[in-house]
Every structure is written in structure tokens, then in C-alpha cells.
């Protein structure tokens, strides 16, 4: 080592000089930032390109899609796929059903969530910690698929519209978010002041708490709405009648199980049908996702806040 002393001290000087330069002109930082932008661009493209491909295909002609000529821009622009989507009675029925499940389900869920979260947020309520622990425990341990199914069966919900609304009406996560919000946004002083003025608990909840909690309620409502709109599993287990099927289950039957009504004998007609059936898939994906994706940019901010409230304290 001693023999190399001279060169190492030289290197050390160099390094020190480099460090001094870095504060003023961080070249390594610029290289680093280039990498960061590159990385983000890759992330962006990887997420964006499949979406673009589906949208572009949905606006192309059946022949172009079948020939695989579509990349990220429509080829032979046509709306044939969308016509086919809206001519299909199953899809239209599914769409209407999903709208029903989403609207009614969200109203039920939000009401139930507030009804349990608000009392649990009040310090004067005896036993609230025990109740909250019991609620949290359901996040960690569940009875399982079959025992739950048997309950739904025994209360007579099987194959009714309520089977998609009642059994998953309350989300524990949403209760946590609501309770935390109530606890931080409604000061005890406010409760006491209103009580002095002779305002009962229910009146206070209705005319003070709920108006104050509007942003949180919006977040929770949207979480429930999106969950409802996107769910298919409950429909798969609990429903038998096709006219009750939500859109996602119709989607699964068409997109994944490939159940298109056959019957044509003519070969060219079969090919045409096949082409149209392929195209329909792309259009259907777009149609099914549009409602959610349309509202999403407006709610993303609130969503973020909602996640944070929930993450702060469980």
C-alpha cells in the first residue's frame, strides 16, 4: 500500500475536486435525471400502448383488425364494432343492470358506512373499540367461499338483484376512512356546542356532520361505485338468470368464453361473422371501460387523499 501512496493521494485530490465541482455543476445528477426521464417514459409507453392498441382497433374495420394491420391508430376508420355492441340485446341489458347495481349499491353502501363509522368516531360511545376490533378482524379472517354462499342462500338472496348489493355492502377499508375523517374533521367542541343548543345526535349528523364530510363521502361513494361497476365474481356465484347479469359477466361470456351465437352455414358468412366478433371485442372493452375512465381524472385527486386518510391510521 505504501508504494501506492503517491497515486492514491493524487486520486483523493481529484476526487475532492470532483466533489467540489459537483455542488456547483452536478453532472452525475444530470445523467441521473436522464435515466429517470427514460425510466418514466418506458413506464408511460408500456401502460399506454396496449390501451391505444385496443382503442385504435375498436375504431377500425373488421377486415383490418383480422388481418392484424392495426397498430396504434385506426385503419379504415369504421364504427361497425360499436354498432354491433349496441345491437346486442345481452350487452344492452347488462349495461342497464350494471347501472342499477352501481347506483343502488352505492347508495346502500354509503348509508351503511356512515351509519357505522360516525358512531364509532364519537368518544362518548361505550364499547366502540371492541366493535372496531371486531370489524377489523373481518379483514384478517373470513369464513370462506362456501360458508358465505350458504348464508346468502339461507337468507334467500340467491338469484335476486339484491345478491349483488347486500352481501358486499360494507367495506372495512371505507369504514376506516370514514371514521378517521369524522374523528379529525368534527371537533368535540362542535358536538358540545350543538348539544348546548339542543341539537340531538341524529339532527347533528344530518345537518352538520354530513355537509362537513362531503369530500370524504364523495371519495367513499366513488370507491364503492367503481367496485360495483367492475365486479363479476358475485354475479358468477349468486346469479343464474341471464337477464340479471351485470355487464362484467356478459363481458366475460363474450370476451373470454367466446360464446357468440353461431348457426351460419355459408363459409364466407362465417368468416365475416368471425371478423365482426373479433372487432366487437375491442369495441366492447372500450364501451365497458369508458364510464369509469371518464370520471377517473376528476376523482383521482380525491382518491389519493382517501387512500392517505385510510393509510394514516388503521
Amino acid at each position: 500500500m505504501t508504494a501506492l501512496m503517491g497515486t492514491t493521494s493524487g486520486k483523493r485530490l481529484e476526487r475532492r475536486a470532483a466533489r467540489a465541482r459537483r455542488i456547483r455543476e452536478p453532472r452525475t445528477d444530470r445523467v441521473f435525471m436522464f435515466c429517470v426521464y427514460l425510466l418514466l417514459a418506458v413506464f408511460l409507453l408500456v401502460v399506454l400502448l396496449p390501451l391505444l392498441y385496443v382503442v385504435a382497433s375498436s375504431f377500425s374495420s373488421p377486415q383490418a383488425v383480422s388481418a392484424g394491420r392495426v397498430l396504434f391508430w385506426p385503419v379504415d376508420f369504421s364504427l361497425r364494432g360499436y354498432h354491433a355492441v349496441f345491437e346486442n340485446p345481452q350487452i344492452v341489458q347488462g349495461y342497464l343492470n350494471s347501472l342499477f347495481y352501481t347506483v343502488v349499491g352505492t347508495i346502500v353502501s354509503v348509508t351503511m358506512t356512515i351509519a357505522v363509522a360516525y358512531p364509532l368516531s364519537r368518544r362518548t360511545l361505550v364499547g366502540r373499540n371492541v366493535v372496531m376490533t371486531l370489524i377489523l378482524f373481518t379483514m384478517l379472517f373470513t369464513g370462506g367461499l362456501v360458508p358465505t354462499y350458504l348464508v346468502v342462500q339461507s337468507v334467500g338472496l340467491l338469484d335476486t338483484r339484491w345478491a349483488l348489493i347486500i352481501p358486499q355492502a360494507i367495506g372495512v377499508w371505507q369504514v376506516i376512512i370514514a371514521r378517521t375523517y369524522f374523528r379529525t374533521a368534527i371537533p368535540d367542541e362542535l358536538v358540545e356546542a350543538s348539544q348546548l343548543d339542543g341539537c340531538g345526535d341524529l339532527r347533528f349528523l344530518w345537518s352538520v356532520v354530513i355537509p362537513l364530510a362531503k369530500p370524504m363521502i364523495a371519495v367513499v361513494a366513488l370507491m364503492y361505485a367503481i367496485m360495483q361497476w367492475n365486479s363479476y365474481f358475485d354475479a358468477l356465484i349468486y346469479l343464474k338468470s341471464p337477464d340479471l347479469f351485470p355487464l362484467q359477466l356478459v363481458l366475460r361470456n363474450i370476451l373470454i368464453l367466446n360464446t357468440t351465437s353461431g348457426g351460419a352455414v355459408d363459409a364466407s358468412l362465417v368468416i365475416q361473422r368471425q371478423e365482426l366478433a373479433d372487432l366487437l371485442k375491442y369495441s366492447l372493452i372500450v364501451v365497458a371501460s369508458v364510464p369509469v375512465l371518464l370520471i377517473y381524472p376528476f376523482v383521482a385527486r380525491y382518491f389519493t387523499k382517501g387512500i392517505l386518510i385510510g393509510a394514516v391510521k388503521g
Partner: protein
Amino acid sequence: MATLTTVRPPAGEPPARPRRRRERPGITGLRRSLRRHWTLYLIMVVPLVWFAVFKYVPMSNAVLAFKSYNVTKGIWGSPWIGWQNFELFFQNPVFWTLVKNTFVLSVYTVGASFPLAIILALALNEVRNGLFKRTVQLVTYAPYFISTVVVVSMTILVLSPRLGIVNEGLGFFGVPAIDFLGNPDYFRHIYVWSDVWQTTGYSAVIYLAALAGIDPALHEAAKVDGAGRLRRILHVDLPGIMPTAVIILVLAVGNIMAIGFEKAFLFQNPLNLSQSEIIATYVYKTGLLNADFSGATAVGLFNSVINLALLLIVNLIAKRITGNGLWS
């Protein structure tokens, strides 16, 4: 420097506030609280009945695992058979395949999405606010809102040997078309990476929030000490988001055996069954399609118990090592 003077209140308890009349515990307290706030107790009744019926009754129904279910006698009237359902399951040749598939799929998912979400958040955090940053966030966040059915069918369409753009691309380089979904070897990769595609942007948000909560004074100090961006990420940002990351990891590991039925089931086809059959899909098939209620309940219970045990163990380890856990 203004940033240096900001003192953050200690985490945990909110600043002490003169505590007003807190109801006395015990029976007298309960009676008084009931009389005074009966409306609050009343509005809780419906949701609590809901929790009892749809969460706790199923838990008690799980005794079915130790019984031989008889439709006419009901759950409680059916005869006890002890551990027989479990023994049958453990002896079933499919047992190890199921456990292995479930386990590998989950560990692979956690292993791929956990670091990627952190990397995305760290990278986004380096970019100052601007159009690019907002675009990346908006776009990567979006797939989370698309339904599982749609994500799976998009994946199938994109990978399809006949139409899919991936095979078009491979064909351009002279690679013959690959039937990705027909080959069991590809199943895990397709499952995991479509999941990463869908959830990374969403998961990153939590870390972004944690990053925003890091005291800027720490960054200033590191800068004065001559730390470059990479060093500040390693020594300021990463330790700063550690508590969040630990909690997310504990939760993810706690869910390892509860891996999503929905996606695996949608991706399943007779050709990839050897890799895609997991405990959840098996429970659905034996329980609801073949109506073996007791057997399926036993399998489900086995799964839930393993899950809970994993969660408790990982939480304990995390608390020992980092001092952070799900509960204190």
C-alpha cells in the same frame, strides 16, 4: 432557513386537548351513554347486524369443515367427522400442486410489483411538477380503474396468436407465433405482469404521499453535504418511506395465500390448468360446481388459517427488525 424551523408534532397521538367528560366505563357508563346517545346506537344496529350475518355467521359456518354436510339436516345438524375432510385434501395428489401454484404465483406477484411501485414513486418524485409528471401519473394510474375482466381480455387479445399485436411484432423479427395462453409455462408471467401493468401506478401513490411527507430540511442538509440525487434517494428518501413500505409488504405477505380468485379463474383454460389451478379456484370448483360443501370449506379454512398465520408471523418479524407493524 424557514424549512429548518418547522417542527413536526410527534407522530401518533394528536396534540393533547383538555379531555372533556369522557363516559365512565362499565355497566353504569354504558347505561348512561345508551340513554343519552340511543340514536347513535340505533343507527349502528343495521350495519352491525350486517357484519354479524355476512362476516361472523360464515366464520361459524366454517365448522362445516369438520362435518359431513347433509342438505336436509343443515349445517349444525350434520354429523361430525373430525379431520377427515382435511386428511382427504392433504392426501389428494392435487394438494401440493395447489399449494405450490398459489404460493409461487403470490410470491412472484409481490416480488415484481413491490419494488416496481417504489421505483416508480421515487422516479416521479425526482421530476418537478410539470406536464410530463402529471401525464405519467394519470396514465399509469388509469388501468387500476379498469375491471379485471377487461384487463384479462385485453391481455388475451394482445397475446392472441391469431390477432395479437405481440405476435405481430414477433413475426416481424421472424419469430413464429406463440400461443401464450395455451402454454402453461407462460401462465405465471402473464398473470404477474398483467397485474403489474394494472396496479403499479396505483400502488406508487401511497409511496408518493410518504415521500411528500419527508422533511425538506433533510434534503437540504444532504445537499449541503454534497450528496447527489442518487445518494439522497438512498439515504433520505428510502429510509423515509420505510415505515410505509414495511406495512404494505406485511399486508401483501398476509395476503399471499388469498391471491385473487378472479384473475386466475379468468386466465384459466384446460391447457394451462397445471399452473393456473390455485386453492381459490379449486374451492370454487369443488364447492360450488361439484357441491362438495364440506370438502371445499375445509380447503378454504386451511387457506384462511395459513393466511392469518403468515400475517401474524410477518408482522412480528417486521416489528422486530424495523419497529413498524400493522398494530402496536
